[in-house]
């Protein structure tokens, strides 16, 4: 039983990181109907931003101070939000009315560009760097469970961010505009919504979430490198599809399901080596029975 609870906590911590990344994929899909492959690289850039910001902020606030760590996270999120908006303006906006496949391939191109540029020897190089512990790290023993404070930070951050996101999307004017653009861009434009501004905002929001997720992922993995975003990015993309792409609660649910599955599969010795495959196998099974994802609405085709 305690083993089960232990795995559940680990799974939730991993799943919440996937959920944060998956939300970025699904929001962009909602407004622009394509998969932003460069999202996983924004995540990596977020972790690198924190890595480079941390020393100067530690000098002011002292090592592992909570206000300092929050400032690092906030600044990295802002940097990545700006980067996400820039990527959209430079690479995706010129292709706004082109077939979706064109945009998809461009997104793959952008992703490759960021990855290879960052691996270049005059940028970040291809090596792994140790990621500093931003928050004071402790292990708690409680009812036979070992919980690291970083896991608690991850869970708390996700809870706050999901609530904030829900508030932005459901209760603010910009959020309403986002939902309107996702529902019908032409009609939204006719109602006086500035579509370009809404799309920029969506990219900014998604990229900020990705940056925070990247920092949390780096805290767990304890190291960063230019390709660190690829694996969590692929998982989160799977999570977004699993939940029903374009559906925000679905993306969060998909992330938690995938994180829990990966952790539980990793905890069973007989199948632990296959855990990467098991997540995908289950995804295929679920899509066989619910082709539009867990929470997605099946679309009827109009002739």
């Amino acid at each position, binding site marked *: 039983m305690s083993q089960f609870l232990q795995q559940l906590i680990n799974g939730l911590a991993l799943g919440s990181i996937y959920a944060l990344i998956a939300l970025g994929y699904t929001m962009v*899909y909602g407004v622009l109907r394509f*998969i932003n492959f460069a999202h996983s690289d924004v995540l990596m850039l977020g972790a690198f931003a924190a890595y480079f910001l941390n020393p100067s902020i530690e000098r002011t606030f002292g090592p592992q101070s909570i206000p300092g760590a929050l400032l690092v996270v906030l600044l990295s999120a802002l940097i990545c939000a700006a980067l996400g908006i820039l990527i959209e303006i430079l*690479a995706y906006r*010129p*292709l706004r009315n*082109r*077939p979706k*496949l*064109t*945009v998809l*391939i*461009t997104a*793959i*191109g*952008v992703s*490759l*560009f960021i990855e*290879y*540029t960052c691996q*270049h*020897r005059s940028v970040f190089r291809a090596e792994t760097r140790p990621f500093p512990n931003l928050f004071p790290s402790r292990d708690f023993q409680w009812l036979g469970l070992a919980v690291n404070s970083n896991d608690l930070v991850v869970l708390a951050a996700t809870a706050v961010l999901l609530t904030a996101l829900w508030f932005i999307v459901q209760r603010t004017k910009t959020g309403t505009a986002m939902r309107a653009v996702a529902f019908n861009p032409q009609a939204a434009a006719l109602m006086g919504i500035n579509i370009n501004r809404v799309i920029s905002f969506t990219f900014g929001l998604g990229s900020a979430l990705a940056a925070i997720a990247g920092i949390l992922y780096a805290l767990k993995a304890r190291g960063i490198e230019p390709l660190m975003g690829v694996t969590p990015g*692929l998982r989160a*993309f*799977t999570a977004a*599809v699993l939940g029903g*792409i374009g559906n925000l609660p679905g993306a969060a649910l998909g992330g938690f399901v995938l994180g829990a599955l990966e952790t539980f599969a990793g905890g069973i010795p007989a199948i632990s*080596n*296959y855990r*990467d*495959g098991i997540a*995908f*196998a289950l*995804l*295929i099974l679920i*899509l*066989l029975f619910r*082709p*539009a*994802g867990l929470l997605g609405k099946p679309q009827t*085709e109009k*002739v």
Partner: protein
Amino acid sequence: MTHLGAKRFLIAAIAAAAAVSAFSSSFNSYFLSVAIDVGVNIILAVSLNLINGHTGQFSLGHAGFMAVGGYTAAVCTLRLSPLIPPELQPALFLFALLAGGLLAAAAGLIVGVPSLRLRGDYLAVVTLGFGEIIRVLLQNSEFVGAASGLKGIAKLTTLGWTFGLAAITVYVIASLVNSTYGRGFIAVNDDEVAASAMGINPTRYKVVAFVIGAFFAGVAGGLYAHHKQFLSPTGFDFMKSIDIVVMVILGGMGRTAGVIIAAVLLTVLPEYLRSSFADVRMIVYALLIIGLMMARPQGLFTLGPRKAKSA
């Protein structure tokens, strides 16, 4: 391309490949190796074009089929070659390639079945997941060397085998799509509802496209295995599938001639960049993809009979 012309092309191409292959020992071994890469990539791109281009089913798992074929063929020659007299070795190679192709086709059937219900991004994710599952299975199979890879594969792939099979692939897929039966693939791509109203069974066409595409990808995998003489599961990851998809899109979806030119270009270009801008070649490659998508989204070469689809 009329049917008679296509057959002449096929015979001429195979004869040319065999003739060039006979002299291959006098070529620079680096150029020879790049030439074989070109042939393998032509087979991969043309076979993926049947699934992605002609039939319009966006697949991101072509490297998975290639892996199935490559590993099967390699295991065949590794295990059977000591049991067989030397004069039958070429026949064994052919058998291994066919076995690889058939097993990959079986995998294509397994992937084709979910495609009955899924479309667009969902299908892309399922094929991507399938490719990853294959990779994880290979990584954990001691039988094929697990994560450290399969070593000591005989060097059996020659220029003749590669381009002969590339010519057969092009011929089979081009004449299939141009046949009365094959028009169905294009109909499914253009409008599934209208196609089924005309009595075409979209499900069947999709599965057939996956099976045939996977078969040739498996053959290409076998050639690749006996060319590189080493297989590693990481060589068949998501990025390999993306490389093939980029060839198809640059060549123009559903345009066989364009896809062949793109496969040649995208194999030779990185090799060319390797010599002049070694450390930025992949950055240049990425910028090229973005630039081409902005300038010529319909593909670099709008050759071949396929008309552009609006939207």
